[in-house]
């Protein structure tokens, strides 16, 4: 499995992602809907359930998901594509979008898991289409952002900030 080295998300595609997440949040009455990259980075985050520590949450959820796929391999199972974490008040449903992104829905006991499963499947189908466009567009858009000036400015900033 070859991993991409970059993924560039444009305004247009982020808008499509936001529209999908917002609709899912509304239709499931979830408290939060997030789209993560499997490396743990938060691409978009909707709702009022998780305001703080979004970055840490992204890292942990992606880590838990990645870990569960290793469990699947040890069991001889082809893959676990979803994880359901059930709490007293809050539940989390995480599902894979192709091999690249994770769709996360945080919801309480007033929302039925069946509804979350069905609607997240619909949302995943839409996100797969967005992902295909993002992948196709990445190399073209990257050159418009990552140029010599950018690299040199970041290097200067690294020298300035990463020191004792």
């Amino acid at each position: 499995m070859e991993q991409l080295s970059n993924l560039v998300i444009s305004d247009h595609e982020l808008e499509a992602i936001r529209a999908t997440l917002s609709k899912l949040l509304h239709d499931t009455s979830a408290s939060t809907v997030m789209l993560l990259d499997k490396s743990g980075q938060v691409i978009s985050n909707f709702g009022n359930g998780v305001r703080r520590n979004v970055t840490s949450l992204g890292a942990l959820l992606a880590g838990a998901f990645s870990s569960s796929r290793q469990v699947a391999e040890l069991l001889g199972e082809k893959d676990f594509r979803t994880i359901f974490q059930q709490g007293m008040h809050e539940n989390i449903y995480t599902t894979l979008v192709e091999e690249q992104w994770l769709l996360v829905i945080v919801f309480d006991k007033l929302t039925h898991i069946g509804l979350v499963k069905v609607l997240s499947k619909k949302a995943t189908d839409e996100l797969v289409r967005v992902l295909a466009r993002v992948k196709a567009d990445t190399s073209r858009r990257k050159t418009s952002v990552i140029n010599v000036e950018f690299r040199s400015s970041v290097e200067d900033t690294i020298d300035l900030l990463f020191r004792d």
Partner: protein
Amino acid sequence: MALINIATHEIHCKIVYYGIGYCGKTTNLQYVYKSINPAIRGEMLSIATETERTLFFDFLPLDLGTVHGFRTRFHLYTVPGQILYERTRLAVLNGADGIVFVVDSQAEKFEENVQSIAELEMYMRRLGKDLSHFPFVMQWNKRDLPSALPVHVLDRYLNRRRVPAFEAVASSGIGVFATLRAISKSVIAQL
């Protein structure tokens, strides 16, 4: 995998510290957390056992602020070093943009270091990446210990690719930022 979000003007990169148990991966992150300007860093997250060994990973987000119109973030991770956590190491490596291989310089740890780097090479191949063309630096840690092997020996047997290598005593911070600067620049150069 670096994420470049043009819409929100953000760039995220993931750096993983890899190496054997007790080689000093967590110590590197703890020193960065303790010494760097607090405005740059987020909360450090550690999933450890009761005896403070890393069970899953440590995580430290660093935010360089807005550079050339883009908010640039580095997320530092460590893998658990103990042999039995090999599957967890693979899980944490997923999506990495750069790797620091932390070597415990002590002679008695040499064989373990060799096995660990072989394991890393295997995992990278499994992830479809070639370490020879990937942001990768070495850190010779624990240089202050009496049984530390000479650097030229470590370099010859553990650094076949001749990637940048840094001497360190992570517990007192020596070499920690030099290593971090090198891997961060290498990641940016590869974007």
